[in-house]
């Protein structure tokens, strides 16, 4: 199968029903997206498919053939981090950081879709992304900052 991930084409040999997450982590060496639950309930595995956040843990790899997959590693353009990666650092918007990659791609898609999104909208968009450490408010501040600086 041929996959386009972060702008690069990759040939992978595996069962087409293999969850995208395992192909990314085990075949392509892109370990940014994380396994959290395997049921699409926590958001740790989120990646973008044609710009939309999806749970890569329960998305079979056949379904993304011919589409653009973007992982947290692909948020960097020309060596420059995404504005959200900068604001997450500025706000120290994590504790353990296991949920961070999923948060970043979800928010990147949100800001593309809705550049002026308000706080309540950010929280709603992140309700499918769980954080156990309690870094929520920092994450929301980081997204608000990224928004302000982009507009």
């Amino acid at each position, binding site marked *: 199968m041929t996959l386009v991930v972060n702008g690069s084409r990759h040939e992978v040999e595996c069962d087409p029903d293999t969850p995208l997450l395992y192909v990314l982590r085990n075949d392509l060496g892109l370990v940014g997206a994380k*396994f959290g*639950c395997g049921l699409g309930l926590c958001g740790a595995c989120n990646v973008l498919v044609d710009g939309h956040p999806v749970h890569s843990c329960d998305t079979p790899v056949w379904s993304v053939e011919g589409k653009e997959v973007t992982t947290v590693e692909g948020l960097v353009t020309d060596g420059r981090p995404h504005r959200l990666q900068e604001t997450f650092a500025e706000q120290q918007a994590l504790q353990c950081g*296991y949920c961070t990659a999923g948060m970043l791609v979800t928010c990147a898609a949100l800001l593309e879709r809705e550049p002026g999104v308000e706080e309540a909208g950010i929280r709603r968009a992140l309700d499918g*992304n769980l954080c*156990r450490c309690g870094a929520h408010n920092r994450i929301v501040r980081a997204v608000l900052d990224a928004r302000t600086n982009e507009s």
Partner: protein
Amino acid sequence: MTPTPTTPTPTTPTPTPSLEANPRLGQWMTIEPDGRVVVRSGKVELGQGVLTALAQIVAEELDVDPARVVMVATGTDGSPDESYTAGSLSVQHSGSALRAVCAQVRVLHLAEAAAGWGVTPDALEVVDGTITAPDGRRTSYWEQVRVLSLDREVAPGARAKRPGAYQVVGRSMPRLDLPDKVAGRPRFIHDLRPAGMLHGRVVRPPSRGAILASVDEAAARRVPGVVAVVRDGSFLGVVAEREENVLRALAALRSGCVWKEEDSLPVERDLAGFLVSAPTQETVLSDTGATAGSPGGSRSVRARFFRPFLAHASLAPSCGLAVWEGDRLAVWSHSQGVYRLRASISRSIGLDPEQVVVQHVEGAGCYGHNAADDAAFDAVLLARAVPGRPVQVVWTREDELSWGPLGPAMVVDIEADLDEAGRVQRWVHDVWSNGHASRPGPPSSPLLAATQVEAAETAMPAGDPPLQNGGGSGRNAIPLYDFPRQLVRTHRLTTMPLRTSALRALGAHLNVYAIESVVDQLAVLAGVDPVEYRLRLLTDERARAVLCAAAERAGWGSGDRGPDVGLGIGLARYKNRGAWCAVVAEVEAEASVRVRRLTVAVDVGLVVNPDGVVNQIEGGALQALSWTTKEQVRFDTRTVTSRTWEDYPILTFSEVPPVDVVLLDRPEYPSLGAGEASIGPTAAAVGNALFAATGLRVRTLPLTPANVVAAMD
């Protein structure tokens, strides 16, 4: 209780337990010729930012740029043994040790330079590791490494800096691990991909104590790339080349199993009744004459509080990695105590500890004794079947929520006898709970798989740490308030239907909730404002200070907040000897309990990293809010049934209120841990705010609509 006297930080480092156990300078650090300072701590990164705080302490005492400091992850092949990273003691123990080590290393380097130049050390200046004499001659720590060995005993006497002179400590230095994590670079144990790595999974029994009668392995072995099926007694696992295939094989193996099962768990609906009627061991934590004589009051307040079992519910399932090379074993784990894990593994597997190396690698957030150690041992057992090849085991989400150690369910009874004027004459606090400590490491509890193999080890019911270490069931059961006669007892269950162990704050969660609820009730009975009532009972100045700071910041006593809205306050000093923390919660209660704001005031003594402390306090408050309003491990008579995020929901972004943290900086006092201080006070504040909003004292956690309705008279 009598306020514990506190003394200002001595500038001469005092011995710490960490230094006593690891007394050679070279165990703690190496200065490299290339200008790096390589630091080995026995404390591990759990997502709490401890490595950053420790690096700040090192940079401060040595006078080097923090960028030179390289924090090495703890491993049994060279790190100091500092036991567990637990109890909010890392900055206290490892920080004190490193401060003393660095102060001495600095003195040694200055003495070396001074002797060579014929000047006194006092005349020298150090800037970023470069030593300069008054006449301009220069050398540096890195130039001196060839002549100055750190292979020597730690000696007392080197003066550490005065806090007033701090440049690096006290600043919000960014987290060292953050750049990797926002870039998605490999950082977690789950991300390790050593050459030839295989994927392993374990079939956990369908119920507690189930015996594997037989298994048909044929279907599992037919899955492509399956390398081994491992069965030892009731321990069953599979190893495969690819992760998706090991999961298929796991499912196939599971459906090929025949188990012998029986009921072994109490009835969930009557869990409180079970706790107070099960066999227990009683310990009196405090008795100041409350048992003697008559009850001695004209009226009494009695109340029973309950919390269910709680899950750690970390975002990542536990993970372990192991490889056997001949009779040597290498293990990677996100354990809180790599030396204890090594002891446990080597004993169960029949190796000398010297044949086993356990290396710490970061996992997701760790809030106590989770399944990290168990997953490591799973990997050891599976890797034994494929010598020379590393095996990574990742638990399923379902196993993580149901088979990991749980925070114990608890009952607290409080009885307060009052005189005519409403003053407390006698205070009795009883706790029923399973023990809060069953960490691995001889002679305590075996790792999970060790209880399932053919030569099974028996799991003893969890114990409780002694009160001088903060206690377990009885943590924070002794009130901060000056009650004249008090009796505080724990009743630790000597039977353990569900495995329990340390979860953040241990018993402090419910003990503080209960004490603060009753104190609040007494304030209402006395017709006194709850903050004012507490102040009348408090002589501990630092407790009074956080109470007043939280109340003031929250606008306590001012303004109308509207119908169904109330403010509540909670206060505790963690372990009665750690950080002071007070929380004000603003709660709106209509169909459900909604917390609109939390205001937290905290005193952790000398603050090493202000933003790090705020992050920990805020995180603790939000986790406590999640436990207190939402969380409950569900079970039937055979096993835990809350196995996904749908059955075990935690706080979501839309439910998270703003958290305002006031940090009372006390540089003149020793640093105290921040990770657990806000748990009890937050829970208590929410419960008391719910009362203020509704007039209901809800004493059964979590504060779900059902439990609120059940509390109506």
